[in-house]
């Protein structure tokens, strides 16, 4: 005998009540969401005073001490919110899209590989911080003073020391070594079309080999390609899935000169020496300078300028090296001890922001065509 599903129970407190509950819950959810949304709306129309809150857009690698931000907030009676906005390229794209109605007051994370584009789009207003005096000339980013330098770093080849010891192979010494047959299938790099360090590494090769002459950067990449270089789309998958120190089997990876120091630091005391080392030959490591700029449309310009000064001052500059693994631009800032494992290259590879702005897209296109074949 089959009783038909539920029809037998035709009570008043039936499923309609369930519908009623659902509608109530939906309404509550929508209202709560809107309530949360309105909480964060920073529209100050009622008061004449300028808002005392700052919103900073940054790329995902940004990191700083909680107390460092809190001190600024206390000192200036302000609130600071940092919005993570993707990698450097995504962050800049978002700032350009929101140009007419910015979602933030400042943008941190523009480097020399993107500076030209940012200046072309005129998203920043000028500000020359007095702290600029403490930044050596070679680490100043923008002579037009739209972007103030905060930190710098070097994209460089890292190699896995134990792997080379075990195999009895000499580690590479400069970019050119990688084309040597004994380093076949050993290297992993990132795609310059999708990754910041990948792009910086492409620039390093352009700076090192040039566009004219017997051996151009295109020749170099053709040789690398023949030597079976592995190309991943981002730093994370290169480092954690392809590099032999972690899940992969390739002992040479494009990373940063600070990565060996970070390995010691994040080993939680297990290591006293880095498991990896840098390739520091002349013109092998690309200098990346990162900066902060005040966005056109800033609500409280004076407060934003105070924040820029604060970021370039020692308190902030001495805090971020072990959080972001970059070197402070302010020469007075003292580096933490672990940075003894993060030596600065004698002759880094460099390209001017203007050269980069002019050729960036063409180089990426040429690289893509070259590696496709």
């Amino acid at each position: 005998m089959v009783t038909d599903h539920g029809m037998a129970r035709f009570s008043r407190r039936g499923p309609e009540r369930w519908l009623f509950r659902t509608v109530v819950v939906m309404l509550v959810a929508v209202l709560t969401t809107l309530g949360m949304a309105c909480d964060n709306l920073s529209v100050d129309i009622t008061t004449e005073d300028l808002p005392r809150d700052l919103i900073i857009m940054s790329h995902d690698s940004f990191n700083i001490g909680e107390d460092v931000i809190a001190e600024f907030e206390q000192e200036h009676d302000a609130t600071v919110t940092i919005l993570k906005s993707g990698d450097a390229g995504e962050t800049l794209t978002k700032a350009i899209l929101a140009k007419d109605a910015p979602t933030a007051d400042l943008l941190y994370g523009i480097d020399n590989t993107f500076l030209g584009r940012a200046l072309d789009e005129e998203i920043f207003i000028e500000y020359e911080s007095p702290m600029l005096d403490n930044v050596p000339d070679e680490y100043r980013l923008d002579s037009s003073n739209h972007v103030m330098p905060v930190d710098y770093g070097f994209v460089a080849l890292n190699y896995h020391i134990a792997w080379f010891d075990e195999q009895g192979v000499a580690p590479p010494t400069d970019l050119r070594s990688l084309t040597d047959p004994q380093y076949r299938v050993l290297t992993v790099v990132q795609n310059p079309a999708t990754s910041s360090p990948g792009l910086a590494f492409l620039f390093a090769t352009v700076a090192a080999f040039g566009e004219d002459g017997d051996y151009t950067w295109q020749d170099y990449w053709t040789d690398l390609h023949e030597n079976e270089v592995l190309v991943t789309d981002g730093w994370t998958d290169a480092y954690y899935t392809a590099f032999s120190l972690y899940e992969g089997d390739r002992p040479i990876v494009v990373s940063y000169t600070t990565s060996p120091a970070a390995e010691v630091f994040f080993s939680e005391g297990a290591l006293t020496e880095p498991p990896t080392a840098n390739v520091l030959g002349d013109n092998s490591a690309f200098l990346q300078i990162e900066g902060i700029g005040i966005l056109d449309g800033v609500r409280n310009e004076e407060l934003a300028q105070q924040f820029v000064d604060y970021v370039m001052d020692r308190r902030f500059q001495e805090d971020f090296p072990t959080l972001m693994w970059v070197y402070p631009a302010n020469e007075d800032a003292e580096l933490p001890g672990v940075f003894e494992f993060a030596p600065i290259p004698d002759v880094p590879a460099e390209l001017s922001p203007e050269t980069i702005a002019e050729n960036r897209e063409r180089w990426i296109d040429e690289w893509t065509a070259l590696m496709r074949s």
Partner: protein
Amino acid sequence: MKDSPVNLWRTARIALPLTFLLIAFAWPLFSITRFSLGWDGQGILSPFIDAASDSYLRGRFIFTTWQAALSTILALAFGLPSAYVFARYRFRGRGLLLAAITIPFILPPIVMALGLLSLLGPSGLANDALTGLLGFDNPPIRLLNTFAIILIAHVVYEYAIVVRLISTFWANMDPAVQEAAAMLGASPRHVFFNVTLPLLLPAVAAAAALIFLFTFTSFGIILILGAPQHATLEVEIYTLMTKLFRPHIAAALALAQLIATFGMLWAYVKLQSAAVTRIRLRAQGATPSTGRSPTDYIMRLGAIASVLLVLSPPVALLLRSFITPDGLGLDGYTAIMSNDRNEYFYISPIAAIRNSLAFAVVTVILAVPLGVLAAYGLRNPRAWWRNPLDALYMLPLGVSAVTLGLGYLLSLRIGEFDVRTTVVPIILAHTLIAYPFVIRVVLSTMRAIRPHLREAAHVLGASPLAAAMRVDLPILSRAILVGSVFAFAVSLGEFGATLLLNRPEYTTMPVAILNYLTRPGAINLASALAMSTVLMVVAGAGFFLIERARYRGWGEF
């Protein structure tokens, strides 16, 4: 007037979903396209001409389509035996297993990559076994950055869609038809291919459509596991938009992708509405299988093999999270519990769980009624607008998430009313991806309901609403629960929300995992793995609990 609530109900089931689509989909897409197409000042048509005349981009279009088609076929082939077993067998731990196989669906691609590589990577389990047992000098399996690993990952991701959609439908199917065929002398294989499969077609087609859309716009998996030559259209759009600063070409590609998707969806909805057979739906408990035919054994073996394949990445991750440089330990778990370095962006696992769950619950609460409502609007088989409307509802799954995410930056502000940096874009994005799942699951069951049940209710004096609530909903409850599982999963996995602005206080579990993996060092990998385990446990528990939530008296269906 007796008519007015009826009319209200008729209007609402079309107007509400369309309003939502306008706000969350059409307007942002229109804003970003208008902004982008005029970028180079050459007029609106020139980007399309540029894109179409670029042989590289044409090649990407072809690659994108066929990798999606291949992934869909493979996922169906892997999932079908399991769908059968979950539909026809009652066994201990069935609910838990069903929750477990849905976990891979929500894993961030980098975590999936780490899971797959600890099995198939150069120092993974498979290679260790092969080198150890067979004496290979070098690891014989090399999968990183190959086409094969993309397909494997797609199958592992989309398997849950096949199993859940098809088994839900299958379980409610009255076996009397098959029994009759068997009695008339049909062999079990003959019954399967000529009776069962045609009846299952609506559910198979629904699963295929969802999987095709997901893999057609595949982004993270391609970036993490593929090589540059595996770039899909979505990856090209991303690169053109955020790296090469050619938004006009990107917008042209996104529109081409959208139009192609719409065409395929229209073909699909036509096929699906033609495939509908009204069948007698039975309560699930009434249809267990006692099959002992060879087909049954093959199905069981196939199910066990595919469950093992799908569960191995999460299990590998789980085990991996307890392995430290010096043996077993809880390093990662200890690290995520405290903010030792006093970081501004630190988030405790508790807060990350709370945020993820809050977004997921709101997504379920919005997407499920929206999807059910939309499905009701699509029920009338004679309306000319039904097929285009159905295709339109599915379109968000086939649109470029990169383009849409950036579109929110332009569209979610009207004068002083600016919600771009609030929770609104996150909720909109999650709901937008979640509700098509609800529509697909609900619609395939709804169309199979024989209309005379509802007619009987009308004759007995029930209003359309009462008929919907008391006749349809009990039958649909199972499908609605499955829809809820996917809405919940879509939100937990943060599909398509990658390009929004993230306030630190909204940090979810997937975002926290990615934060750990932006810097080098053993403890960061350990922390990411520990957080991934937390994510998997929370997701699995959520799936399990949602399916146990049943209204009294509805549970059998």
